[in-house]
């Protein structure tokens, strides 16, 4: 036999090496001829060897069907081993030689009567596998006998054979009454027979959805549950899968089934465990949640799932895919088992990735620290793919668990410091998402990101970085340079980067119109003229048209507020999840697709749904079965009320200034920029008519109209808002009373309506009899009523904080304006701001939260008791080192020294002494800030010279600049 095997190997090698096909066929013929001779030999051993050789050739794909009659001749033997080999051959070739197969029928029928149960079963089994129509009628009689055979081995084989026969000829099976016999076998004494009968019936029932074949009622369920305890593991799987299709009548029945299925959870065969999990997950829906048993069951589900993770990697992977579903449906089962999902270094990569996914799903505030530490560890591993996914996972954690966002960002920054190229790139992509989720919160990291600009070489990271630069252009000083550097190799970039670059530069232009005009023209012409990518070209044209027709609208569109992203985007849709839960432990749960998506349609695939606990009596298929609770609601979408804003814009342009507020400060400049663009940019575009692209533009009527319209509209839209704004400013300035001679600047617009969905806030800071107040005018320029106002400050240099809530008690109806005064205290949290007197404010109403920042005059903070004793002043002046002194010039001030002194006194700047040296008045002044810092000043006023010189000394020299600005403001008004 050894020899023969070697020969087989040699033959195969020989065959595969041969290239001369002619020679190859002749050898083959010779080989078959040889085999034929051996098959007809008288010696049993030789026959057996020959059949083996035939089967070996069959396996490697050679056609040995020509030997059919010779092999069938060997069939009549009492040697079981030879018989099996011949049957093996028959099963393979009967289909291609149906006429010849009939030759074998007699032997089959005879074998079915054999004394040896092994031979009886073998014959029935093989006959069923010969898928030839003609043979089936001969099969019926033997099959009927075998179904009632005394030996369970034969019966169980016969049970499966019914399913085989049904597949070939369904009508025959029904006519012969095999189905009833099969149903009787469910009550067989041998559990193996029961299991096979259940399997066969389930399969037949699947092709007749309405046949009620597998009539599951409490009695049969009881039989199945009894057989469950006795039969082999594989039989248990059939039975459990069958049970999963049953719908219990009430919660008591489902509890009793659950109780009897639960012991299967500790089985060594993972398929049994998962089938049991499926039954339990399904029947659990029926149980009332307050039942003690429900809690017990939940606890019992965790250990078997955890055990699966110590199996072979293939099983682990399949188990993880299923756990992923279970975690989404019932996170409580595994919420304490985070540790088992930690990645082992020797897990295959596909297992690692699945584990990561589940870790994120299980992440919560309670375990986030542990998870982040673990993820950070992964990010330093060697496997690049895995490291990338780990970095992504950190980002997803930040988005999922809001409280952890800060920690996640700092972890990402740590990772960026490693300077490992792919880690940095991935981190930047992730930070972009974090910015989307938490706008205006972590912008401090932008500087760090910009440092790594050079090292980005992957399109996704470059695109993300460009997006960040464009989005926060106003906070990045050299945004234009950064973007320009990308522009150099524009045509070598991938489409993703090109599109992002285009958008970012347009954003930058809308934010800083004056400096970036050239840049935007450059990118627009690159996108529209030199690119053959239709997406890029179209987007370029859209921006161009927008910018040239209506820059305000362009701002609306390009800088529109983006809907917040949430972690729900990667969750499976609830209805699909419900269906997949019904298919736990099947391929559907591995693909995460419903079976209908990958199983051929003919096998009646029903969409299974979970039964709700409310509808305990309803059938599973019933469409109105109460879908289970806990289905997540639609994520809150932030949609800016575009209609209102449009109306608002129209108002701005057309109606007299009385009803409208001033436009955003940037608007006039921006429109000027746009006009230039119209002049220069368009001409050059129109000039290129000879190119196909140019022709394209000319041919488009919409384009022409877009170009033609703006010049006419320009003067109107340019003049109206500006004059309106000025009037308004003047109005407001006059409206606020000037008290006690202290200087109060006019109100300025802090929050333009455009940025805040119709809410406009203008305001001013005043100090009245020792109390700092923030006086605000709130106007509703939207169409809907606003209410529920609230205000909050970010930490700031002097700890300013609202001393009470914002007193706006009545809702603000459209076009209404309301005045509000907010008393401020100086005991809030302190953080140094740049500039020092910058204040970041958040205002909330029923629509959204808006952020703006404003600067308060530092005189707000000068205390009434800021007059120093002369001696103290002298001592302090000397005490403060000279490097803390700063000098400023105040130009064009025509007050004499006394008038100045009086005026300053109104702002709590006290003159302590006055000296006159050579016609120059020197005023020595002091002031005290709310946080106890003293500022000393020497003001020199020379008669006839409108320029004052001021020297400031203070222990905290940072405030000098602010104080000087305040002097200037007070003295000039």
């Amino acid at each position: 036999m050894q020899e023969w095997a070697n020969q087989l190997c040699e033959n195969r090698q020989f065959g595969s090496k041969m290239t001369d096909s002619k020679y190859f066929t002749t050898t083959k013929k010779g080989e078959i001829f040889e085999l034929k001779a051996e098959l007809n030999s008288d010696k049993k051993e030789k026959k057996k060897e020959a059949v083996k050789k035939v089967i070996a050739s069959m396996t490697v794909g050679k056609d040995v069907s020509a030997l059919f009659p010779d092999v069938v001749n060997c069939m009549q033997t009492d040697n079981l081993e030879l018989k099996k080999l011949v049957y093996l051959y028959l099963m393979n070739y009967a289909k291609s030689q149906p006429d010849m197969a009939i030759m074998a029928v007699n032997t089959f029928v005879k074998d079915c009567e054999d004394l040896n149960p092994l031979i009886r079963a073998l014959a029935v089994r093989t006959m069923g596998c010969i898928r030839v129509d003609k043979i089936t009628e001969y099969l019926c009689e033997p099959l009927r006998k075998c179904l009632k055979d005394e030996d369970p081995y034969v019966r169980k084989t016969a049970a499966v054979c019914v399913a085989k026969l049904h597949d070939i000829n369904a009508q025959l099976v029904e006519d012969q009454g095999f189905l009833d016999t099969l149903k009787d076998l469910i009550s067989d004494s041998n559990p193996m027979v029961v299991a096979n009968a259940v399997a066969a019936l389930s399969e037949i029932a699947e092709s007749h959805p309405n046949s009620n074949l597998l009539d599951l009622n409490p009695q049969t369920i009881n039989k199945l549950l009894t057989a469950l305890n006795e039969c082999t593991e594989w039989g248990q799987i059939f039975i459990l899968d069958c049970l999963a299709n049953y719908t219990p009548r009430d919660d008591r029945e489902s509890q009793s089934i659950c109780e009897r299925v639960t012991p299967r959870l500790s089985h060594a065969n993972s398929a049994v465990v998962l089938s049991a999990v499926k039954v339990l997950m399904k029947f659990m829906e029926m149980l009332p949640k307050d039942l003690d048993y429900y809690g017990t069951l939940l606890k019992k589900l965790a250990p078997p799932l955890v055990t699966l993770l110590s199996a072979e990697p293939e099983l682990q992977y399949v188990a993880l895919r299923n756990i992923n579903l279970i975690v989404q449906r019932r996170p409580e089962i595994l919420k304490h088992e985070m540790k088992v999902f930690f990645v082992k270094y020797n897990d295959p990569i596909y297992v690692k990735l699945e584990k990561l996914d589940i870790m994120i799903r299980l992440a919560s505030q309670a375990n986030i620290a542990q998870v982040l530490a673990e993820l950070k560890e992964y990010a330093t591993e060697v496997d690049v793919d895995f490291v990338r996914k780990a970095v992504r996972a950190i980002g997803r954690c930040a988005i999922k668990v809001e409280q952890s966002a800060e920690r996640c960002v700092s972890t990402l920054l740590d990772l960026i410091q490693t300077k490992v190229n792919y880690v940095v790139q991935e981190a930047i992509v992730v930070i972009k998402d974090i910015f989307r989720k938490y706008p205006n919160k972590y912008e401090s990291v932008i500087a760090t990101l910009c440092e790594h600009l050079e090292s980005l070489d992957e399109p996704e990271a470059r695109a993300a970085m460009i997006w960040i630069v464009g989005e926060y252009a106003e906070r990045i000083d050299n945004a234009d340079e950064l973007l320009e550097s990308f522009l150099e190799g524009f045509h070598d970039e991938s489409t993703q980067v090109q599109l992002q670059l285009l958008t970012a530069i347009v954003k930058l232009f809308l934010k800083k119109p004056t400096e970036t005009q050239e840049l935007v023209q450059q990118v627009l012409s690159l996108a529209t003229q030199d690119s053959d990518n239709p997406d890029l070209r179209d987007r370029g044209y859209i921006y161009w048209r927008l910018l040239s027709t209506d820059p305000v609208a362009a701002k609306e569109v390009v800088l529109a507020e983006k809907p917040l992203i949430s972690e729900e985007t990667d969750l499976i849709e609830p209805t699909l999840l419900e269906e997949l839960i019904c298919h736990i432990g099947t391929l559907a749960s591995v693909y995460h697709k419903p079976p209908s998506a990958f199983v051929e349609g003919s096998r009646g695939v029903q969409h299974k749904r979970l039964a709700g606990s409310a509808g305990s009596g309803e059938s599973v298929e019933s469409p109105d079965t109460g879908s289970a609770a806990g289905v997540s609601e639609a994520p809150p979408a932030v949609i800016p009320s575009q209609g209102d804003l449009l109306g608002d814009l129209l108002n701005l342009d057309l109606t007299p200034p009385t009803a409208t507020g001033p436009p955003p400060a940037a608007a006039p400049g921006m429109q000027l920029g746009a006009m230039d663009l119209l002049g220069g940019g368009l001409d050059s575009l129109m000039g290129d008519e000879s190119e196909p692209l140019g022709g394209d533009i000319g041919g488009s009527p919409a384009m022409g109209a877009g170009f033609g319209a703006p010049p006419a509209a320009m003067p109107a839209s340019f003049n109206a808002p500006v004059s309106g704004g000025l009037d308004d400013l003047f109005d407001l300035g006059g409206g606020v009373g000037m008290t006690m001679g202290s200087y109060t600047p006019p109100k300025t617009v802090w929050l333009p309506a455009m940025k805040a969905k119709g809410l406009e806030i203008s305001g001013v800071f005043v100090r009245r009899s020792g109390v700092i107040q923030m006086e605000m005018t709130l106007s509703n320029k939207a169409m809907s009523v606003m209410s529920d106002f609230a205000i909050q400050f970010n930490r700031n240099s002097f700890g300013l904080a609202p001393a009470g809530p914002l007193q706006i008690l009545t809702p603000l109806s459209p076009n209404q304006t309301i005045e509000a005064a907010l008393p401020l205290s100086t005991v809030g949290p302190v953080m140094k701001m740049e500039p020092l007197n910058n204040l970041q404010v958040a205002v909330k109403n029923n629509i959204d939260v808006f952020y703006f920042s404003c600067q308060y005059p530092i005189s707000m903070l000068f205390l009434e008791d800021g007059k120093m004793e002369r001696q103290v002043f002298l001592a302090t002046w000397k005490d403060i080192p000279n490097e803390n002194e700063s000098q400023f010039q105040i130009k064009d001030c025509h007050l004499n020294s006394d008038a100045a002194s009086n005026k300053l006194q109104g702002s709590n700047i006290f003159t302590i002494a006055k000296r006159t040296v050579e016609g120059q008045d020197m005023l020595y002044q002091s002031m005290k800030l709310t946080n106890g810092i003293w500022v000393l000043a020497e003001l020199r006023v020379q008669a006839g010279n409108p320029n004052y010189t001021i020297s400031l000394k203070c222990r905290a020299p940072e405030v000098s600049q602010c104080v000087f600005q305040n002097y200037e403001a007070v003295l000039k008004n």
Partner: protein
Amino acid sequence: MISQVFILSSKGDHLIYKDFRGEAGSDVINVFYEKVTALPGDQPPVVMSHGDLHFVHVRQGGLYWVATTTADSSPFSLIEFLNRLACLVQDYCGTLTEKAVQMNFALIYELLDEVVDYGYVQSMSSDVLKNFIQTEAVSPRPFSLFQLSNVGLFGAETQQSKVAPSSAASRPIQSSREQGGKSEIFVDVIERMSVVIGSNGVLMKADVEGEIKVKCYMPNCSEMRIGLNEEFSIGKSQLRGYGAAVRVDEVSFHQAVKLDEFDNNRILRLSPSQGEVKNTLSIH
């Protein structure tokens, strides 16, 4: 339900091919091999689809063990089946190599015939199967250039000759019935140590995993007892004795092992059926 089962060598040669339900042709073998070799690294190879046909495969002994199915059946049972099949083949052929499979193809076909009927797994326990299997295994001659185990250093007689060669346990279980003579039990203790050392020389991870394998060639083995070191302690349980104790994080046992005496006396009682019984200990 299993539609087909096939075994491929690592180079893609067809070793075994069996169709149970006539749902697809044998051409899918090549489709599978192309798919599995073209797979990028981070794609899970466990389940792959080709039209209506789904491949589930595992790798054991350097071979691809593949099952196909058309229905939405359980990948757990398919994987579990393939793993058990590989075990069964190892039990029957002695070793799990390409050559052993090639030489024993008739035996494997016979096994498959008994184990699966019309795609339904019937029984995979070697106890049950030995009643049905007729073909005898052919063992490939073990590789031995000099019979190294019998030759001591410089040809000196050493104790080595009394030790059975490591290949002794890799023989088919069936032969015991025919040869009648040798009733043997092999207990292998296998330990694997994995250490990861960082580029800076710092030890990042070190763990030891081990298992005790029992291979039984006794026709009727009623019960056997394996005594472990008394100082063997698991998890956080208290140390016993004073010597160099063995502390293990986690232990799992084969289902045939009875643990009544384990807690007190560290004795494992098992009534092995013929073939391999694994008792895995993982130590950290």
